[in-house]
């Protein structure tokens, strides 16, 4: 970077930058424009980083409470590099927003719905699995290593089983997302007159069949509750009891 903190004539300062990037006069003037609008911001960021680092050096707060910029950026970089933030980012995107694209790519077909359903569920499931893997107790990893579980065997015998409760949580969340996108999809995409729940709902509205509309809504609600609390609730409870994470009652 050509910017130096001590005040220097602007022209002189640009020399380094020009030599690198600006070959033609036009590019030169553009680079200058960009630079002149950019440097106060760069300087501001630099000052903030400097003050931050000085506070850390001065032990203003203990290091683990108030880490330096280097530590913070390394952590940010690590998060970016391991794809977690991408997964989380995808998760915040409402999956209905994928429908136009899905319809363009797959036409009005079941594949389009499947695409959106999978896309809605996958980030939650992946997040559950990755966070489970991240939180395997180190003592168990060590116990596994002593027993000879390294590499693939460590995953098979220690890491994946230890991550299972978190994975199950991700599945439960994934199901909730999938169910929502499925209903939205069936309202948007009608496949060859087949009577999906969403289609039934919409045709009840069109036919002014309000009792039918209510009945379909109740069915949708009941399916949601059954899968959520019966399937996932029971599975989760069973795992937690097995692990001794809840008091065994009765």
């Amino acid at each position, binding site marked *: 970077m050509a910017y130096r903190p001590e005040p220097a004539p602007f022209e002189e300062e640009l020399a380094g930058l020009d030599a690198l990037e600006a070959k033609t006069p036009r590019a030169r003037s553009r680079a200058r424009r960009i630079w002149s609008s950019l440097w106060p911001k760069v300087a501001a960021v630099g000052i903030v980083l400097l003050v931050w680092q000085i506070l850390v050096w001065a032990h203003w707060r203990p*290091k683990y409470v108030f880490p330096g910029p280097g530590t913070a950026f390394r952590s940010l970089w690590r998060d970016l590099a391991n794809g977690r933030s991408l997964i989380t980012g995808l998760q915040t995107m409402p999956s209905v927003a994928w429908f136009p694209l899905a319809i363009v790519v797959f036409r009005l077909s079941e594949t389009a719905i499947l695409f959106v359903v999978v896309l809605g569920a996958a980030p939650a499931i992946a997040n559950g699995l990755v966070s489970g893997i991240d939180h395997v107790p180190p*003592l*168990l990893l*060590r*116990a596994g*290593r*002593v*027993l*000879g*579980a390294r590499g693939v*065997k460590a995953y098979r*015998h*220690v890491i994946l*089983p*230890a991550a*299972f409760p978190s994975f199950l949580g991700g599945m439960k969340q994934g199901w909730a997302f999938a169910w929502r996108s499925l209903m939205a999809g069936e309202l948007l995409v009608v496949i060859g007159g087949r009577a999906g729940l969403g289609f039934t709902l919409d045709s009840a509205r069109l036919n002014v069949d309000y009792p039918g509309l209510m009945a379909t809504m109740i069915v949708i609600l009941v399916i949601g509750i059954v899968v959520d609390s019966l399937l996932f609730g029971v599975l989760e409870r069973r795992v937690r009891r*097995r*692990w*001794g994470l809840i008091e065994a009652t009765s």
Partner: protein
Amino acid sequence: MSLRPRARETAEPELHMGSGSAVSLTSASKVYGTGAEAVHAVDNVSLDVEFGEFLCLVGASGCGKSTLLNMIAGLDKPTNGTVEVRGGRPTLIFQEPALFPWLTVERNVDLALKLRKIDRADRKQVVGSLLEMVHLTGFGSKQPHELSGGMRQRVAIARALAQQAEILLMDEPFGALDAMTRDLLHDEVERLWQDTGFSIVFVTHNVREAVRLADRVILLSSRPGRIAAEFPLDIPRPRRIESPEVGALATEITARLREEVKHHGVQT
């Protein structure tokens, strides 16, 4: 069931002669952290554990005993110096039981056999006799959280024995046990050791326990952990923990330990 290590059955004992000790630490040090926050857990420890030796490490809390064992087990690298181990990967019984909560007691022990590629047909019987040895017959189908602390620790012992490693590292394995059970397990461990010729490094707070079991007791100073004193033992076996010889030597070592703690303070 045979608890003999595989190497003993196949390789002749002469193999070990002249090839050094089971474990050799040479000026091994371990520093946790850096800069002002650095903790010198183990400092410049040189130590040989002979083949077939029963070595006990005693020292105040926080003096680096667990760190030393972890380095021998290959779980932590020394910051300085070297750790050499001969005769296969050692097994380590952790200070906490470290059982896998998703497996039953039986399957925790079984996993050690599975990872050694023992045939499924043979495993069931071996698991049974190991659980019998730690007095847990009938608890095989329980989950670890359904057991008491001492019972869990005994499962961990059974799981470690299932590995049949020639070097057994034990980190305060009997700390959570009542005196009766502990005495029984002292007998079991001693018998196992005599039958198999394992090398054992045994960490304990309990000086009497060390004297009951060891060929040699090493006293570590408080942080940084260094070897403060060494006591070769020649009390004939079988020993009893309440015998006057054991008591006399334990008193001597305890006095020395107290001196260490007074010099360096108790680490918190």
